[in-house]
């Protein structure tokens, strides 16, 4: 019996992984060979997907990208014995793309069966929770604090401080919530993790629960991720069946329950207070802060709100210790960040590295330049509310503070590349349009400002009074930035202003029509 690993990640599925798996089954049966296909997550090298690995003499030999039509030829080449074939890549882990990565949060993604608790435990899973259960709650929080872990959802707030605040609230019902409303274009690390290693998120939330005295967790998952929903619910059921969730977590006598709640297609619910409103069954309108969710959150109770990657990193921190994690990174950005390369890029995918590498390394060493072969003119970092960064700034290190100093933000670590055919006025207009579509409507600068911004940019596109309209656009951006209740209206000016600042030639001198 030979084991073949075929990704079941939705990115791999979108490139035909299910069809490849079926073809392997058919071909093996026709040849009377015994194989079992294990569906894993994706290793994140999407230009090689579907990336199939064959277990052979204690190694995993990779072949990719495999199409169903390649399968008979792979059997002909004796791939079950590691036979040579034009698609053979050798051991996946030794490819330059992977060998230079520092996979901590993603240590198991693409390697293990996401639904299998035994596989998870065999690869270092649940050691963190075991350790946390043997410690005082304050000591667990102290570990997270000392690791330097900051919120990976985008705001980069120190996770340990958030947890400490919840811990310090009077005993009573508290909640751990996971913000899995990954709506930023160019980001997919939450999805990959939930589809590839959901038990690490489940373990992280359980650790959070035991650390702050919360007995109930909710994962707020966006409706656009039906595949992640299936993986998560299966993994949660498996964790319950093995007593890693429920009334007696790992025999500790402590309770932690966890369920997934589906969002319904509202970008603004990625904002933490909107998410809480939505979890309570209401319109996802932002709440005015204070009070902070850590003091008065879900159903008015003290609540941790953390991103998927943040929570999924906690088990490793508890297992290896705070110092181990803090040993990676630069400045105040400690640890690693799973970066996502997207858009017009030759080798798109997930690169987990310690903070400090440059955008250029990411775009050219990992990404291989643009997919179109044309020069990369701009990248948008951190989603639709992130700034556009011009090629002149590609030597900036990936670090929260270094990017902020250049007027950009790292956000959730998604990087979308554009070649030199991009029209930056249209991208600025799209930023305003997206804000108008997704505005919750609660505050005027966001609700009305975004539509006025679109109109101004339409005038500029038509070449009408560009200088006057740019002045009005700047005034509007300042108002949205200062006057909006949350990041949606308050940060839409970032892509708009950065487009104007770095690509002014696109805005002025257009033919009038």
């Amino acid at each position, binding site marked *: 019996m030979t084991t073949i690993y075929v990704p079941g990640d939705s990115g791999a*599925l*979108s490139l035909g992984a299910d069809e490849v798996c079926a073809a392997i089954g058919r071909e093996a049966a026709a040849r009377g060979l015994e194989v079992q296909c294990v569906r894993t997550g994706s290793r994140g090298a999407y230009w090689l997907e579907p990336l199939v690995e064959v277990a052979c003499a204690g190694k995993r030999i990779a072949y990719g990208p495999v199409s169903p039509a390649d399968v008979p030829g792979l059997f002909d080449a004796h791939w079950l014995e590691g036979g040579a074939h034009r698609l053979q890549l050798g051991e996946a882990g030794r490819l330059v793309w992977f060998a230079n990565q520092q996979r901590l949060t993603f240590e198991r993604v693409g390697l293990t069966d996401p639904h299998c608790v035994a596989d998870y435990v065999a690869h270092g899973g649940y050691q963190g929770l075991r350790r946390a259960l043997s410690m005082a709650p304050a000591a667990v929080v102290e570990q997270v604090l000392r690791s330097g872990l900051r919120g990976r959802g985008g705001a980069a707030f120190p996770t340990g401080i958030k947890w400490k605040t919840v811990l310090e609230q009077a005993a009573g019902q508290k909640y751990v919530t996971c913000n899995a409303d990954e*709506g930023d274009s160019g980001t997919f690390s939450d999805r990959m993790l939930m589809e590839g290693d959901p038990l690490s998120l489940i373990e992280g939330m359980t650790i959070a629960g035991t650390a702050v005295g919360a007995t109930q967790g909710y994962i707020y998952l966006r409706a*656009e991720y039906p595949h992640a929903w299936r993986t998560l619910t299966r993994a949660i059921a498996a964790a319950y069946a093995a007593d890693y969730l429920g009334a007696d977590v790992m025999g500790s006598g402590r309770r932690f329950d966890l369920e997934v709640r*589906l969002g319904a297609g509202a970008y603004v619910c990625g904002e933490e207070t909107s998410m809480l409103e939505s979890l309570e069954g209401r*319109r996802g309108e932002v709440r005015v802060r204070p009070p902070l969710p850590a003091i008065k959150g879900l159903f008015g109770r003290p609540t941790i709100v953390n991103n998927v990657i943040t929570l999924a990193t906690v088990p490793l921190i508890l297992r290896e210790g705070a110092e181990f994690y803090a040993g990676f990174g630069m400045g105040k950005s400690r640890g690693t960040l799973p970066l*996502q390369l997207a858009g017009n890029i030759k080798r798109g995918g997930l690169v987990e590295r310690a903070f400090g590498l440059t955008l250029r390394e990411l775009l050219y060493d990992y990404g291989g330049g643009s997919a*179109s072969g044309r020069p990369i003119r701009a990248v948008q970092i951190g989603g639709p509310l992130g700034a556009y960064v011009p090629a002149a700034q590609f030597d900036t290190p990936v670090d929260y503070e270094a990017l902020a100093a250049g007027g950009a933000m790292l956000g959730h670590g998604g990087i*979308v590349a554009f*070649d030199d055919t991009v029209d930056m006025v249209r991208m600025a207009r799209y930023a305003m349009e997206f804000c108008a579509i997704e505005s919750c409507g609660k505050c005027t600068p966001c609700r009305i400002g975004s539509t006025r911004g679109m109109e101004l940019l339409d005038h500029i596109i038509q070449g009408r009074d560009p200088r006057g309209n740019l002045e009005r656009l700047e005034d509007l951006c300042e108002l949205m930035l200062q006057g909006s209740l949350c990041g949606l209206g308050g940060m839409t000016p970032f892509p708009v202003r950065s487009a104007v600042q770095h690509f002014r030639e696109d805005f002025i001198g257009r033919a009038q029509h």
Partner: protein
Amino acid sequence: MQTPAVDQSQEVSRILAQFKDRPGPLLEVLHAVQAAIGFIPPHSIGLIAEGLNLSRADVHGVVTFYHHFRSAPPGRHVLQVCRAESCQAVGGEALAEHARTRLGVDFHESTPDGRLSLEPVYCLGNCACSPAVMLDGRPYGRMTPARLDGLLAALNAPADTEA
């Protein structure tokens, strides 16, 4: 075939009984109703409001706030085309335009024969394989106008009988 209104009401009542005692149940109820019926029938708003001790305005407000919830039946197939930045960077807008022209409908509309609804989506999280679309919940990456034509033609095949 659309479910008769009386069956729909029974379905909604069953769902309410299942979810009403859970914390913050409205979105869960709406998801379950849409999964069972295909949309949120306007006549069920009052029933849901009563069942959860909310006002009709509360329920209507939630249904209309979220892009995912529909107040009218969708086509038998749903094609979601991503229109966000990563897909725009590699021809997503041309693909969107192609879909509109090919189907003869705009976004948020269904073909006159009720076979397919065209919907925009702002990120499917498949950005390393842009442009991305989803057809009936199945993801497809690196989409081109020609491949999209192939997918749509497959829907016309005889196997695609009345759902």
